């Protein structure tokens, strides 16, 4: 049995693949999505749903974040309730004079790049977050920080893509590329071969593995993070609250374990506490130290949490890109192959911007923001040598 070729074949049904599918289908392209697992069963169901501008440094990632924010609040506003979109604002709390000083320096830079942020004093902080630690010496408030429920986001984007004509194939693993000469013509999967004009690698932390199937190096790999989920409580935490050290962690490339708390309430009543960062490959063994570090930091930020019970902890693998810039756009090394991966700790927030830009580029429109800085052209041309470990 031979299925007809599609305009676009998307590998991966996480938030990014789903958003690409949705925008492409909406733009009139014929779309097929294949995933080796279940819908959104990768990182997008093992993460949190913060849409942050507060943790971004200026550069392409911030541009994409701002662009995505415009979509969340504009074009996609009518669906906001489906994925529990909330514009709740974020607060960075400094508990030491020294971290307050670095926070103030960061604010200055962020303001210059158009991020909206107010410095707030302790009484102002207590008004926004009455349960925060008494150790706080100051804070910054980011009115633009938002949140969504990632699994609902992914599920509804996939549904809407399907309703716009996309075909979704699950339990279908891509095992190879079909090429004619250099040109990619489709993919070989565990369920047969599918042809397409354009194949898009939206395989998240498996992005390097998929690129390797096409013989190119895209150094995106897993960076593990744990999240703790508390018992449901009446509202105790009102914004997304995190500690000043968090910003440093996001930007670092440290292999070792790092953790700083991001504490947020959810509509269902549980509080999510994340998250750690460690580069340990796709390691599924428990790291009690990560849990301990997150727990300690969270208690320091919200002392009431001490008596709160954790119902569950889980971990996911962020699609880590060494320069912290996602990989988006056509691969000049392999015609027919595009990438949409490597969004690290921000792929939920950046998914919609990524999807829309790809749809624009594929339909020959001028993209709303430049794709250049995200181009895979920045990686070396060599394929990954056999046996080399992917970062």
């Amino acid at each position: 049995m031979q299925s007809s070729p599609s305009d676009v074949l998307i590998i991966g049904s996480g938030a990014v693949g789903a958003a690409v599918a949705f925008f492409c289908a909406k733009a009139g392209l014929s779309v097929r999505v294949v995933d080796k697992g279940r819908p959104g069963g990768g990182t997008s169901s093992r993460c949190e749903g913060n849409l942050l501008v507060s943790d971004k440094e200026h550069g392409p990632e911030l541009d994409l974040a701002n662009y995505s924010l415009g979509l969340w609040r504009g074009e996609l506003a009518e669906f906001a309730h489906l994925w529990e979109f909330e514009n709740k604002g974020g607060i960075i709390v400094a508990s030491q004079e020294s971290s307050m000083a670095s926070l103030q320096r960061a604010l200055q830079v962020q303001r210059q790049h158009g991020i909206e942020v107010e410095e707030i004093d302790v009484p102002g902080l207590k008004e926004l977050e009455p349960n925060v630690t008494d150790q706080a010496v100051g804070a910054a408030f980011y009115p633009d920080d938002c949140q969504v429920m990632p699994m609902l986001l992914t599920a509804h984007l996939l549904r809407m893509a399907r309703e716009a004509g996309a075909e979704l194939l699950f339990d279908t693993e891509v095992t190879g590329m079909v090429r004619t000469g250099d040109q990619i013509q489709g993919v070989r999967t565990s369920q047969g071969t599918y042809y397409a004009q354009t194949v898009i690698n939206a395989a998240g932390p498996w992005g390097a593995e998929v690129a390797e199937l096409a013989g190119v190096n895209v150094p995106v790999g897993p960076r593990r993070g744990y999240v703790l989920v508390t018992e449901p409580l009446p509202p105790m935490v009102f914004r997304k609250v995190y500690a000043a050290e968090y910003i440093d962690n996001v930007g670092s490339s440290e292999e070792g374990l790092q953790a700083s708390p991001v504490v947020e309430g959810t509509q269902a009543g549980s509080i999510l506490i994340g998250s750690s960062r460690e580069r340990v490959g796709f390691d599924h063994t428990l790291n009690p130290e990560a849990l301990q570090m997150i727990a300690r930091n969270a208690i320091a930020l919200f002392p009431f949490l001490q008596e709160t019970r954790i119902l569950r902890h889980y971990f996911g693998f962020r699609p880590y890109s060494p320069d912290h810039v996602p990989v988006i756009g056509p691969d000049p090394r392999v015609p027919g192959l595009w990438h949409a991966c490597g969004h690290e700790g921000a792929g939920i927030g950046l998914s919609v911007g990524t999807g829309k830009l790809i749809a624009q580029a594929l339909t020959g429109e001028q993209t709303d923001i430049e794709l250049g800085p995200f181009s895979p052209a920045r990686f070396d041309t060599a394929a990954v040598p056999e046996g080399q470990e992917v970062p």
Partner: protein
Amino acid sequence: MTAGEFRTVTVTVDGRRVTTEAGRTVAATLMLAEDRLHWRETRFAGKGRGLFCGIGVCFDCLVTVDGQPSLRACLVQVAEGMSIETEPMDG
């Protein structure tokens, strides 16, 4: 211990003094001494809940004991002077 030594225990339930037998669980005390089948309210629909699994797995029976919230009433044994707080509801 000889039989009869600690036959009864007095606890407070939402401030009321209640006398029960030693060895009772908090759940059994609420059910037998107070004739209550539910002592917790669900957070969305506000429905009453009490014992369900009876062995500490379902967490339907949560109460506050001596100030500590969210303990499983089916597992806590009463003790002299224990203070039990429930989520009282109509009916």
